[in-house]
């Protein structure tokens, strides 16, 4: 493990970053949407297709064994990465959305009924909101929201007041993809358990950026996506405590997930394969394994420290710009910064930044209820990863000043 990571050196491992966009060297500040991929991951996926590609868990030929070993090896890497007790607690899915949908459709819809409660927060990404909305509608359960503080943080006393003995399920994001706040998920899990509820933690924005220990958090479910952490798109994972997964029914049926198939009745495979109907995402899982190796070698603590440094620097540089509003708390932020520049619409901001080669996200960030809570229709967001540098932040700040000059009205 490196003592201190060197982002300028690391970025050379990401071929896509070495290009010009609109006549300027690319500054990629949209990793919260999806991260770029290092050579190690690209090469691993390519080598798999060039040498080992075969379907898994079937047939006896050599390539089939190699593919199976690589696929199941990736599962073990994920288990170790999250500090799960058993590798069969790791179910590969298409991403966070599919993982949350699996937990909501299989677990929540089975345990919830009239009079029960599902508790979430207004911070949630649509993918950790709509599955619960739908589960509540289908079961007659009530959907409740833990209220937010003005800076978008959650107070434990509000968690205590919202979760009751009628609560069956709690779902909360570890890190907000808009407010950058890191939520006290371990404490929330304890409150949920005290009330007999189960908790799912949405790890889409935490897993790529910090050490995650599902046993320490003591969450019942944990969902994340590979593509935000240097892996290919189309692979993610649902971690579930073994006793819960054992109890849950599959929601997708077909090949690969069965034990015995009769004309009128069938039985399911062991964990975790009963939840992985059809040919699984083999190359994606192997790519995720390579991404985990890559991130582990750099060190998640190092990555987190680097991003905190960039976020603090960005906060300093951006708040120097008159008329610029930053959303979210001052302290305890992860590596992203959400803002608006006066009354210039974030689409217009993002278009001018793009003309300067700076890629940021603009819109509602799949958080329409949170946008309404913030009383804005949209925001711009710059998000950082291990390959970003202070120079990238400087380029962002300079491009924002230019945006303000270009629009030249209403602010400053």
């Amino acid at each position: 493990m490196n003592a201190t990571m060197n982002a300028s050196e690391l970025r050379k491992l990401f071929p896509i970053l070495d290009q010009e966009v609109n006549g300027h060297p690319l500054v990629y500040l949209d990793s919260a949407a999806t991260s770029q991929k290092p050579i190690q991951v690209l090469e691993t996926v390519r080598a798999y297709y060039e040498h080992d590609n075969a379907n898994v868990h079937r047939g006896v030929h050599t390539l089939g064994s190699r593919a199976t070993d690589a696929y199941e090896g990736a599962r073990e890497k994920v288990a170790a990465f999250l500090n799960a007790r058993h590798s069969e607690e790791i179910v590969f899915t298409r991403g966070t959305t599919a993982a949350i949908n699996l937990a909501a459709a299989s677990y929540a819809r089975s345990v919830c009924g009239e009079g029960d409660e599902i508790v979430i927060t207004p911070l949630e990404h649509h993918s950790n909101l709509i599955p619960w909305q739908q589960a509540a509608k289908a079961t007659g359960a009530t959907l409740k929201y833990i209220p937010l503080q003005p800076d978008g943080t959650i107070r434990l006393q509000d968690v205590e007041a919202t979760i009751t003995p009628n609560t069956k399920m709690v779902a909360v994001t570890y890190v907000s993809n808009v407010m950058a706040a890191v939520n006290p998920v371990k404490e929330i899990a304890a409150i949920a358990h005290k009330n007999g509820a189960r908790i799912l933690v949405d790890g889409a924005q935490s897993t790529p950026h910090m050490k995650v220990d599902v046993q320490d958090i003591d969450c019942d479910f944990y969902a994340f996506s590979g593509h935000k952490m240097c892996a290919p798109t189309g692979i993610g994972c649902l971690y579930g405590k073994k006793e819960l997964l054992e109890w849950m029914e599959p929601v997708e049926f077909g090949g690969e997930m069965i034990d015995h198939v009769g004309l009128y009745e069938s039985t399911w495979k062991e964990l975790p394969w009963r939840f992985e109907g059809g040919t699984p995402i083999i190359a994606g899982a192997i790519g995720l394994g390579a991404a985990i190796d890559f991130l582990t070698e750099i060190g998640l603590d190092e990555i987190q420290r680097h991003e905190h440094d960039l976020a603090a620097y960005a906060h300093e540089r951006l708040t120097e710009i008159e008329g610029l509003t930053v959303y979210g708390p001052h302290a305890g932020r992860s590596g992203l910064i959400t803002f608006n520049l006066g009354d210039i619409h974030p689409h217009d901001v993002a278009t001018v930044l793009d003309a300067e080669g700076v890629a940021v996200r603009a819109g509602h960030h799949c958080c329409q209820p949170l946008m309404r809570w913030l009383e804005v229709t949209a925001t711009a967001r710059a998000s950082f990863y291990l390959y970003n540098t202070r120079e990238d932040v400087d380029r962002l700040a300079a491009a924002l000043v230019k945006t303000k000059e270009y629009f030249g009205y209403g602010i400053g």
Partner: protein
Amino acid sequence: MELDDLYRRVIMDHYKNPRNRGSFEGDAVTVNLNNPSCGDRITLQLKVEDGVVNDAKFQGEGCSISLSSASMMTDAVKGKSMEEAMKMAENFSCMMRGQDVGFDYDDLEALSGVNKFPARIKCATLAWNAMRKGLEQQTDSKE
């Protein structure tokens, strides 16, 4: 990529001083339309009588491109027959695909540069889609 192709003076004028912003008292065809990928929204109202769009107003939130397009559209369709208005919407779509089209409302041509910014085309077309939907509603209710 030249920003000035996108943000022409006439666009910024419509953005800062939108025409026909507001709502009607009384009867009008009303359409609410969102742009779900970015959160823009428009409420468009059309006063249609004897197959003619007599007046149009809009309310909503959005970027300079979507609001200026709404401002221009509501001005441009006034006094047009429903067929002419639909034809104008079609021409606008053609312009967004890079085709050379003419309008008898000159300001609209300023939006031709949007075509070079593919991510922004949906901003420019929101108001026009609302207008089409409104006229379709009007036709359906008459049938």
